[in-house]
């Protein structure tokens, strides 16, 4: 059974049709590349899955059950985690503080509860180790490399039992070596049975790590193909409109 099923979703902002009748499904442990030019509707689709927007038409199903969300926190409660484009990190805080931002661990009783620094450092350390990243929980994010910052943002998604991880342009602003690190992190998530949606402009990343590619153009889905059956040339054609549509 697909972990997430998007059926005939449309999103209209007044007269602007940002998304039109888009459907696709996502299996556990599957990595999907979501591609499209600027304004193709990628962000809108991501925001619908992330609980920021509600679709104008159509529906979302998770594990076969109807999914209606009103705000981003609900997406998280349903096991949908997002790695935002600009990572949503606070430079002035430590790696551990960023991982636990908004879900800080506390100890104590009743209203007298204080932050549990020890537990947060420990858990963050375990997550970084699990992700095979050389990130230290006590270091300030300000001092970190692009790859380490990615690891912090991805470690967040491992705090709860996420079923789906959305990654918005995770390789847009980092070095070649760090890109390899991030792709490894994605494989790592996949191996744990997590479905990953990778939004990217970078053809090589999508073709290295994804199982399937979905292409949007002007708010419509124009392709949904196994990577093995596609090619970068075909996808480029689909993005630009040189190729109208493939089955």
């Amino acid at each position, binding site marked *: 059974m697909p972990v997430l099923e998007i059926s005939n979703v449309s999103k209209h902002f007044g007269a602007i049709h940002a998304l039109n009748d888009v459907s696709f499904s996502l299996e556990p442990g599957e990595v999907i590349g979501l591609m499209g030019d600027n304004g193709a509707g990628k962000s809108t689709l991501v925001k619908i899955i992330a609980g920021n927007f509600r679709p104008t038409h159509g529906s979302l199903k998770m594990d076969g059950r109807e999914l209606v969300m009103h705000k981003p926190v609900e997406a998280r409660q349903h096991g949908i985690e997002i790695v935002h484009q600009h*990572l949503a990190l*606070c*430079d002035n*805080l430590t790696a551990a503080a960023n991982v636990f931002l908004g879900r800080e661990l506390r100890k104590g009783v009743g209203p007298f509860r204080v*932050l549990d620094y020890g537990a947060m450092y420990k858990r963050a350390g375990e997550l970084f180790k699990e992700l095979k990243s050389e990130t230290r929980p006590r270091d300030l994010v300000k001092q970190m490399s692009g790859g380490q910052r990615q690891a912090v943002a991805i470690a967040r998604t491992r705090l709860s039992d996420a079923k789906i991880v959305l990654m918005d342009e995770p390789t847009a602003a980092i070095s070649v070596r760090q890109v390899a690190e991030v792709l490894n992190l994605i494989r790592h998530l996949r191996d744990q049975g997590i479905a990953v949606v990778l939004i990217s402009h970078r053809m090589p990343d999508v073709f290295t790590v994804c199982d399937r590619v979905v292409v949007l153009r002007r708010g419509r889905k124009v392709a949904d193909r196994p990577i093995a059956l596609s090619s970068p040339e075909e996808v480029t054609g689909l993005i630009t409109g040189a190729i109208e549509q493939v089955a």
Partner: protein
Amino acid sequence: MATTIDDHIGQRQHSLLSWLTSRQTFWVLIAVILACAFLSFATDSFATSNNLFNVTRNFTFVAVIALGMTIVIITGGIDLSVGSVLCLCSMVLAVTMHAGYSIEVGIAASLGTALIIGAVNGVLIAYVGMPPFVVTLGMLSIARSLAMVASNNTVVYQFGPDHDKLLALGGGHFFFGIANPVIYMVVLTLITAFVLRWTRFGRHVYAIGGNENAAVLTGVPVKQIKVAVYMISSLSAGIAGVIETGWLGAVTTNLGTGMELQVIAATVIGGANLAGGVGTAFGAIVGAALIEIIRNSLGLLGINAFWQGAFIGSFIIVAVLFDRIKNLRQPS
């Protein structure tokens, strides 16, 4: 595994000294200590219990408000209304007590006023999305005007049946000859430091200042926290107002004029960054202390009081310059 633990320990030992020296608060504290040592030798009048009593008490009013201001500044905001809020709260207290109500009612009315003003500031900033500078600048004008309305612009110096209680509260000393305001300041500093370091609220305050967008995306209740922060700032001004009323024994409508600038100066000297994300409760106190010691020492050394502004202004600039140099040394 053993190596990583060793790494951590090694790193922490190594960094204790560098951590200290990288703190602006540390250097300001050194400056305060040096100034005190110098003044003790250079003048006969500094290290007298009388003068120390005065110095410690004088800076508490600025220091108490600086605690609230520090929290606001950590979120990347600013509160220009504190001087006027102090005046309004003093006036509400004075007028209520003058009308024959007890000190408890007076203080409740006064601090209640502070919380309402803070809530108005906070809602306009967080929910309506107006810039803090403009909102609190408007409130600076409104609060002082309300203080004039409340008192008909007169001086209030009779506080009804609980007159003596109020004067003892602000002007007396319950413990070991330490001025009461100093005790309140110490307690409030400890509370503020605890909240900033050990509570989820404190963590979120730093997160909002570091990257507000990130805080929103990770589910931090940014708007509620912002309202709370401006209420705390106003409350700190209200508390300072109550104490100052008790100490002065009279309230005029020009009480606290220009105080917001002294308070901001204290927080900035104490290491808070107006861009947000950085600041400590202890820093605010040390900053306020340094300003008062400069002021006091110029008097004792017989330097014309007109020079005060120049000295304090230079310290603000030097303190921020320090921060700048430190950042140049560790390029990001």
